[in-house]
């Protein structure tokens, strides 16, 4: 018998379908939104805010470096200890929660899809193992492809077709979703304790980061990929990096997208919007970035907005983490991955009493408020780099309330009044815009709107968040509270959260992309790839690809090659 659910009397925000705060019933059958139901269980939303399930475009929730973060921070682990319940496994961690806590806490915030944006291909099995153990959330993960020796070989030879064959192979081999770029060339240089600017030659490889980014964007657009290349550029977190950021955006301006979307997603842009030359004259350049995004259509961004407090930073950008560790003296883990990538991890405390941190805090929100079109912006904290994802409700309440921003700024370092734009910005986002930057727009950026995510139109996945506020609510504290714990979260037609408590924890699905490369190109690329395994990898070619066992709940998206 069909399982039916009817959500009555909700005020619905469904931007993909142009629904802006309409009182509207939602019918659900067998996990999908349908036109009508016959014999449903009725949930009375009683005038509360109803949105599609949240879609996070970028959060480090699973895989080797996340786990290294958990492993080396038992002190963070104990901060989030919660005993098991009848529906839930035991939880731990604040900035690096265990996989169970990750699923539950996202679901409580009304999120139902999360993108793990940095999978080292050689350790892909690990990422998938953790995603299997992350309850409730549908998910996907993007392999790191930019520092790979194979990639650099083809960038050097200028052969975009063979590069396309390689990215197709590795996305399939890792059950990945797209192309991730992290400090292109710089992570390879870090294997020798060096780093790269955008136009420096990568040691021993005779290519520049700029060439890598452009070539990968072109190769990605050889296929009808749901998502553009996902870029963390060079010199993240360095004063004065905004110019290099804009140069990076400009690299792909001429690349034509195969789908109706940008050709580059620039991630955690807060860390790339810095002026000044040192930490002393450090200042916000969010306006310069926002101006560029406002005037161009080929780039989307996510915020990487700061949540004050202690967190764990982690990225494939090895040299950046080393610099951070040199500043704080705190523990530091590094893990370089042969022929492919690397990673670094170090804990970090964002303090409102420190001028630099205060400005970082401002920059993330400035980006959200200065970029006019919310469809170009995704709300993230680059979890856990700028703060843990459980801080999203704080961020939402700030973006919706100038009053709250002003009150917070008053308690922070005075640099905010001298070197940031935030105090002068009056804009307040409304619920429709919040729905765009947390689900509708993010689903579109990831190309998931065509696969049932980010909206509540007919045939959409029945992923729904019902927040315990009315549209009229203006109290920032109440807004924050509502976005932290939903009244109901429904995932695939099943109620998983009720009154802020997880009541069911079904397994999520893993979305992956199969780029359909011309077999002739694959064949031409293969000898070079096999040579790498024969001589330089420490695992064999046969043991490298991720087996089907690691994607027990698959959702495949085919990406045909453009003729």
């Amino acid at each position, binding site marked *: 018998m069909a399982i039916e659910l009817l959500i009555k009397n909700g005020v619905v925000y469904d931007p993909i379908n142009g629904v802006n705060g309409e009182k509207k019933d939602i019918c659900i059958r067998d996990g999908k939104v349908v036109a009508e139901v016959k014999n449903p269980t009725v949930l009375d939303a009683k005038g509360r805010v109803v949105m599609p399930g949240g879609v996070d475009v970028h959060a480090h929730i699973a895989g080797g470096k996340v786990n290294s973060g958990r492993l*080396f921070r*038992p*002190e*963070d*682990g104990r901060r989030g200890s919660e005993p098991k319940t009848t529906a839930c496994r035991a939880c731990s961690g604040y900035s690096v929660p265990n996989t169970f806590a990750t699923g539950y806490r996202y679901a409580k915030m009304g999120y139902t899809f999360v993108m793990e944006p940095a999978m080292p291909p050689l350790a892909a099995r690990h990422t998938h193992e953790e995603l299997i153990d992350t309850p409730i959330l549908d998910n996907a993960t993007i392999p790191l492809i930019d520092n790979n020796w194979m990639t650099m070989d083809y960038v050097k030879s200028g052969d975009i077709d063979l590069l396309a064959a390689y990215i197709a192979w590795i996305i399939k081999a890792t059950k990945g979703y797209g192309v991730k770029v992290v400090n292109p060339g710089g992570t390879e240089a870090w294997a020798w304790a060096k780093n790269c600017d955008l136009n420096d030659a990568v040691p021993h490889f005779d290519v520049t980061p700029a060439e890598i980014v452009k070539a990968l964007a072109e190769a990605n657009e050889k296929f009808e990929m749901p998502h553009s290349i996902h870029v963390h550029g060079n010199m993240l977190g360095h004063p004065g990096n905004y110019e290099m950021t804009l140069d990076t955006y400009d690299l792909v301006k001429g690349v034509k997208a195969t789908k109706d979307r940008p050709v580059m997603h620039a991630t955690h842009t807060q860390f790339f919007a810095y002026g000044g030359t040192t930490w002393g004259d450090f200042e916000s350049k969010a306006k310069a970035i926002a101006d560029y995004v406002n005037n161009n259509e080929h780039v989307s961004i996510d915020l990487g907005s700061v949540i004050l407090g202690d967190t764990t930073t982690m990225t494939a950008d090895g040299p950046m983490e080393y610099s951070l560790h040199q500043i704080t*003296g*705190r*523990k530091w883990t590094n893990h370089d991955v042969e022929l492919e990538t690397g990673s670094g991890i170090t804990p970090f405390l964002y303090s409102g009493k420190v001028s630099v941190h205060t400005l970082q805090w401002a920059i993330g929100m400035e980006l959200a408020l200065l970029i006019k079109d919310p469809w170009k912006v995704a709300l993230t904290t680059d979890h856990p780099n700028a703060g843990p994802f459980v801080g999203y409700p704080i961020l939402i309440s700030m973006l919706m309330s100038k009053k709250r921003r002003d009150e917070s700024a008053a308690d922070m370092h005075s640099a905010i009044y001298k070197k940031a734009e935030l105090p002068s910005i009056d804009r307040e986002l409304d619920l429709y815009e919040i729905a765009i930057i947390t689900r509708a727009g993010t689903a579109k950026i990831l190309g998931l709107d065509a696969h049932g995510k980010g909206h509540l139109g007919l045939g959409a996945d029945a992923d729904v968040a019902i927040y315990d506020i009315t549209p009229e609510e203006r109290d920032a504290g109440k807004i924050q509270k509502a976005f932290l714990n939903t009244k109901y979260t429904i995932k695939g037609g099943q109620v998983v959260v009720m009154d802020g408590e997880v009541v069911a924890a079904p397994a999520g699905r893993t979305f992956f992309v199969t780029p359909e490369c011309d077999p002739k190109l694959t064949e031409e690329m293969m000898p070079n790839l096999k040579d790498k395994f024969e001589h330089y990898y420490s695992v064999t070619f046969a043991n490298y690809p991720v087996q089907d066992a690691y994607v027990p709940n698959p959702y495949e998206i085919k990406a045909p090659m453009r003729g």
Partner: protein
Amino acid sequence: MQTIRLKLREEVAVRNARIPVDASSLTPDKLFGKRESEIKAVKVWWGNREENTGELFDVSVEGEAGSAEEVKTVMEGDLSRVKHIGEGMKAGEIEANSDVDMHCGAMMAGGRITVKGNADCWAGREMRGGELIIEGDAGDNLCAMYRGEMTGMTGGRVVVGGNAGECVGQYMAGGEIVIKRNVDILAGLNMKGGKITIEGDAVMPGADMTGGEVVVKGKVLDMMPSFKFVETTTVEGEEYKKYQGDLAMTEKKAKGVLYVR
């Protein structure tokens, strides 16, 4: 004044397996204001099950208390498998009349604990204030941090009548520790503030110190090879060699002071 007597029943202490009792819910400030019957109903973990205090301890209450400061808890019986005695306590007094198990006085912020025997590992872990007196020996990691933290004891005073184990005062940032006899390896490891006085011998004291003060009145065995001799000086009328360290943390950070006879 009010005295609450908690005597661990023999059948709890002596069994085939010696399953620990978690006494963190039995601090004077948590018991303040409760009647005897209410104290007996306080939940206590014994292994993987929660029990009523009255089922594990004989409970008696004498006198009245106007505040937590006026509550004294006297713990009796064989307490060598009772953990977390006085953990997190803010006020009042505990007297433990035997050896006690791990984490005695951990995260204590105020009040006073007297242990009439030995205390097992992690006594005074992350202590913030108050006074912890251990008449016998202390185990390892006395007044240290929890795994992964960068701060151990930050305040209060601890006196150990006997010996202490490894890593006394690791990551200590404040407060005072006095050990009347010897300590095992690495006393004052990662110390950044406060003072440790060792009246007996010490092995490799002061490693990775960046602040604070360690005084060793007995012999130092295996002196760290990364400390800089500063001068010969007088402490409490006795002549000491003053060292600065630990240079292995870089000279800029090496602000720890080690006094050796």
